[in-house]
C-alpha cells in the first residue's frame, strides 16, 4: 500500500507525484496511457496575466522551473528562449505596456522592443510590426519526456492501468484490483470527468503543426499579443499566432481553439486559417515544409483557472486539473500547492483562487433548482 495514489501521469500528475515523493511519501501513479494534453501540447513556459491569480501561479511556477532546469535531462529540451509578444499596432503596444507593468508587479522582468530592434532579433518577421514585449525568462521544454523523468524519482511506482471508479481513499482499476491510500490526487485532466461527477471542465480542441528542421531561423517563442486577451477569449472557434523553434530547428506552430467537439480529426479549413495567420507574421513560413499536424484537447474550467486543492466533500481526495493550455507552465506550483496542503505546510502562494469551492460558492440556489 502506498501513502498516495496519483491518477494521471501527464505533466501535472507527474509533478504532484514528484513533489509528494520528495516529501517522503510512497507514491503510486496510475495512468491509462490515453492521449492527453501533455503529449499533444506545445510545452511552453510562459507568463500569462489574464488575471492576478493566473499571473501569480505562472510567476511562482516559472521560478520553480528555473530551479529545476539544471537537473533536467537533455532530452527534456528545456531552453530559455524568451517570448516576444508581437504588437501589430498602437493598441497592441499599449497592451504590451500594460502587460509589462503587470509582469513587473509579479517580479517578472520584460522590456518593450521597438520595430528596428525587433527586426534585428527576428529578421523573418514581416516588416511593419509596431514592436514587441520581450519576456526573457520564458522558456520551452519537451513535456512528455520531462513528465517521464519526474516519475523516475525514488519513491514512485508507475502503473499502466485504467481507473474504473473512485471512492473515498480507494481506487478501483478496470482489471478488478482495488488500491487504497490516505491521499488520492486526481490529475487526469479531461478523463477526470468520468471518475468524478460535477467537475466543471470542458474540452477545448487545439491544432498544432510542425515543420521540417530549419535551424537558426527563429530564436524566440513568438506570440501575438491578442493570444491571451482577445483572440481566444470568446466562445467561438478562434485562431491565434503562436510559434516556437524546437531545439531540432523544427518550428512548432499554433494555435486554434474550438468548443463543443471531441472529434480529434485535423480540420484542414481551420488549420489553413491558423497557418494563414502565422504567415501574416512570418511570410517565410510559406516556403517551408510541414511534416505533421495534429490535435489535442485542453481541459478548461469556466474561469480559465485550474482546480487545485482538497475536494471539499470527498475524504482524502485532492484535485489538480483543468489547467487548459497552461499546465506545463504551472505544473510545479500546482504540485507545490498540493504538497503543502497534503502535508499541512504553509502554502507557497494563496491557494484560494484555485480551489474547487469557487464553483460551489454561488451554487446552493442553482443546486436547489436542479433537485
Amino acid at each position: 500500500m502506498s501513502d498516495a495514489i496519483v491518477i494521471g501521469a501527464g505533466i501535472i500528475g507527474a509533478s504532484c507525484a514528484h513533489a509528494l515523493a520528495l516529501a517522503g511519501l510512497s507514491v503510486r501513479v496510475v495512468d491509462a496511457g490515453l492521449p492527453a494534453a501533455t503529449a499533444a501540447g506545445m510545452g511552453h513556459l510562459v507568463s500569462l496575466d489574464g488575471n492576478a491569480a493566473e499571473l501569480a501561479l505562472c510567476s511562482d511556477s516559472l521560478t520553480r522551473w528555473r530551479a529545476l532546469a539544471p537537473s533536467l535531462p537533455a532530452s527534456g529540451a528545456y531552453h530559455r528562449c524568451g517570448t516576444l509578444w508581437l504588437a501589430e499596432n498602437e493598441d497592441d503596444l499599449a497592451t504590451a505596456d500594460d502587460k509589462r507593468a503587470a509582469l513587473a508587479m509579479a517580479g517578472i522582468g520584460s522590456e518593450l522592443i521597438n520595430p528596428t530592434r525587433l527586426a534585428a532579433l527576428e529578421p523573418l518577421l514581416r516588416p511593419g510590426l509596431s514592436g514587441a514585449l520581450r519576456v526573457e525568462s520564458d522558456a520551452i521544454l519537451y513535456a512528455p519526456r520531462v513528465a517521464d523523468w519526474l516519475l523516475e524519482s525514488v519513491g514512485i511506482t508507475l502503473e499502466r492501468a485504467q481507473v474504473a471508479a473512485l471512492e473515498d481513499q480507494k481506487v478501483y482499476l478496470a482489471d478488478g484490483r482495488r488500491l487504497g491510500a490516505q491521499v488520492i490526487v486526481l490529475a487526469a485532466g479531461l478523463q477526470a470527468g468520468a471518475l468524478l461527477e460535477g467537475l466543471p471542465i470542458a474540452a477545448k480542441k487545439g491544432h498544432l503543426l510542425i515543420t521540417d528542421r530549419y535551424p537558426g531561423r527563429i530564436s524566440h517563442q513568438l506570440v501575438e499579443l491578442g493570444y491571451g486577451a482577445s483572440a481566444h477569449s470568446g466562445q467561438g472557434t478562434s485562431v491565434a499566432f503562436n510559434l516556437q523553434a524546437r531545439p531540432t530547428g523544427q518550428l512548432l506552430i499554433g494555435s486554434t481553439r474550438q468548443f463543443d467537439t471531441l472529434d480529434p480529426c485535423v480540420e484542414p479549413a481551420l488549420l489553413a486559417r491558423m497557418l494563414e495567420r502565422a504567415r501574416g507574421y512570418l511570410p517565410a513560413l510559406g516556403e517551408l515544409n510541414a511534416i505533421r499536424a495534429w490535435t489535442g484537447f485542453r481541459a478548461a474550467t469556466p474561469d480559465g483557472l485550474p482546480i487545485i486543492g482538497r475536494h471539499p466533500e470527498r475524504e482524502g481526495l485532492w484535485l489538480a486539473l483543468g489547467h487548459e493550455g497552461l499546465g506545463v507552465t504551472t505544473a510545479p506550483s500546482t504540485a507545490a500547492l498540493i504538497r503543502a496542503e497534503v502535508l499541512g505546510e504553509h502554502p507557497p502562494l494563496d491557494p484560494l483562487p484555485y480551489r474547487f469551492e469557487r464553483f460551489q460558492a454561488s451554487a446552493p440556489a442553482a443546486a436547489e433548482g436542479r433537485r
Partner: protein
Amino acid sequence: MIRLILDGEALVLPEGTSVAAALAASGDDHARSDLAGRPRAPFCGMGICQECRVCIDGRRRLACVTLIREGMKVERTR
C-alpha cells in the same frame, strides 16, 4: 531524357521519374539523415511518411511526390 544534379553529380534519367526513383538510381537511395546522423530513405512512396525530405532547388520537398525536371538540383538533407 532529363538531366538533374544530385549532390553535385549529374544524373540522366527518363522523363516521368520521381526524385525518389532518381535517388535509388544513383546507387544510394538515402534521402536525409536523422538527428543522430543515421540515414533515412523513402518509405511510403506516397507523400505521407515524410522520410524522403530532400532539398530541391533550394526548398525542402518530398522526393517521392516530385518528378525530376531538366536542370533540377537535388541535395540530400542532413
